[in-house]
């Protein structure tokens, strides 16, 4: 059926397809899969003993707990403000709206270490702008949990907003206006109409920010005291253990972090198809 020339074209495009496939898969393998697999391999080099030993170390347990606490707190705060700011950006016009929109992307472009330093400058207890005042009133920010939560919030700020804004824009405000004309107050309209319409975007944003918050290193390291068993999060602990030649523990904790992040992504992947079927 096919003429010789069209067969040649088909062959060539097949070759191109294969080359592209090999290239992409190879790239992912070298960059992501192999190193991650290496962590897993090292973790389980001695069976479960690596993980058991790591979990027997009170510093490790504390660091994991602290990471979880900070991630959850930051994600909750970020979800509330993220949804609120998305509504503000999409549904209202005000002076400085575009500036705000650009500002929200700042955490993506600024190095987390710089974020940490900036927070230290403003909130530290000795020479910061707010720090001494807050510390006089019994609230320590830097080298304590509030600072670590703030740093994490800063880093994950765009993740919920960038998920929710396009959905809100596509949704339009027709349904909200209809709800208002049917007697719903602003709160009722949000809870009954807006929130159900954007819930999958919010869920996706939450999971992404949770995964990002668990892995945050730079910003948190700068603002935290990094005292083992007190203000040291899991990522910083991994670095410290690795440098102290406790590689087994480092690999085990690293594996647990990877596992949690992958779990988050799997949850999203499982949730998404149900959304599109609906």
């Amino acid at each position, binding site marked *: 059926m096919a003429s010789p020339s069209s067969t040649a074209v088909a062959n060539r495009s097949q070759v191109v397809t294969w080359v592209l496939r090999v290239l992409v898969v190879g790239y992912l393998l070298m960059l992501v899969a192999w190193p991650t697999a290496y962590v897993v391999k090292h973790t389980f080099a001695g069976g479960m003993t690596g993980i058991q030993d790591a979990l027997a170390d009170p510093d490790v347990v504390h660091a994991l707990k602290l990471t979880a606490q900070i991630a959850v707190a930051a994600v909750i705060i970020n979800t509330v403000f993220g949804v609120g700011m998305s509504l503000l950006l999409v549904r209202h016009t005000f002076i400085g709206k575009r500036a705000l929109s650009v500002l929200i992307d700042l955490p993506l472009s600024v190095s987390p270490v710089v974020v940490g330093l900036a927070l230290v400058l403003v909130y530290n207890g000795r020479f910061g702008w707010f720090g001494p005042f807050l510390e006089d009133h019994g609230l320590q920010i830097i080298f304590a949990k509030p600072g670590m939560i703030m740093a994490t919030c800063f880093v994950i700020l765009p993740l919920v907003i960038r998920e929710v804004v396009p959905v809100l824009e596509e949704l339009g405000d027709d349904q909200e206006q209809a709800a208002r004309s049917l*007697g719903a107050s602003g709160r009722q309209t949000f809870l009954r109409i807006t929130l159900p319409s954007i819930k999958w975007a919010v869920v996706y944003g939450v999971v992404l920010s949770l995964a990002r918050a668990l892995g945050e290193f730079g910003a948190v390291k700068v603002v935290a005291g990094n005292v083992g068993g007190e203000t040291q999060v899991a990522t910083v602990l991994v670095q410290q253990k690795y440098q102290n030649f406790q590689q087994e523990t480092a690999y085990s904790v690293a594996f647990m972090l990877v596992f949690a992040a992958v779990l988050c992504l799997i949850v999203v992947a499982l949730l998404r198809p149900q959304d599109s079927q609906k």
Partner: protein
Amino acid sequence: MSIEIKGVNKMFGDFVALDDVNVSLPTGQLTALLGPSGGGKSTLLRIIAGLDAADSGTITIEGTNATTLPPQKRNVGFVFQHYAVFKHMTVAKNVAFGLEIRKRPKDEIAARVDELLKLVHLSQFAHRLPSQLSGGQRQRMALARALAVEPTVLLLDEPFGALDAKVRKELRDWLRRLHDEVHVTTVFVTHDQEEAMEVADEIVVINNGRVEQVGTPDQLYDEPANDFVMGFLGEITTLNGVMLRPHDIHVSLTPEVAGAAEGTISRLLRVGFEVRATVLTDDGEEVTVILTRTHARQLGLETGVRVWVTPAAGALTMPSLTAAAG
């Protein structure tokens, strides 16, 4: 009077959407706001509903000053051009929304939803999602949803604008019959003069942010207040410096009446039962004439035939502005 609009102005930047609008819309009637796109009719409807705020002026609904009331306190039903269905709720839930907000008892809501779905012929679709309905069905659902809260006034913003011609015609008839059943004061916006004349008890013609004329369909057609209204409600042509409707022109093959304009048929177009002839008069006017096919055959009209044209007896005429200026 159900809705009183007094001295309403609205600007969008430099654009004047409404310019000192004063209208009274009577209780229990079906009123059409008719006008070209961008003329301000939708803006007026949204201001009545409270979805937009007027820059100045007052809105009174059934004796209550509603000018500063938020939409949820006005007790109006609003139907949008693009339906604005609640996509994540079933048809029944959509209709029940206003009642649930008002915290009515469950069995009362169920009974009312049932009754309304019957009214709009959607009973068998109660448990479907709006995405499974056609455009016409969605709009009927939106109408039931708006009616559920027993609004003082029902406002429809180009309700049939997004539907195809056949469904639009069906829904138009259906809206008229529905209104005769439920008698709620209804205002709908349209740019289709045929739709307005067919459905409405009263028509408000709006152009460039101003009310051009208010009246029954017959009043508007027979006694248009100005050339804009005359031109908007039907085709017009100019003969001897007066404007009149093309079907109000008498054509003869001999100079029967004194003052008849003599001319040549330059173009003949047949559309179904209708024949549209363009007569080029010796004075240089291009006159459009509409006759029935039978009449045109009786006269033996063809391109190039000499004819005499005069306004028919009883024709509505109006001095032409262009003729007066020229």
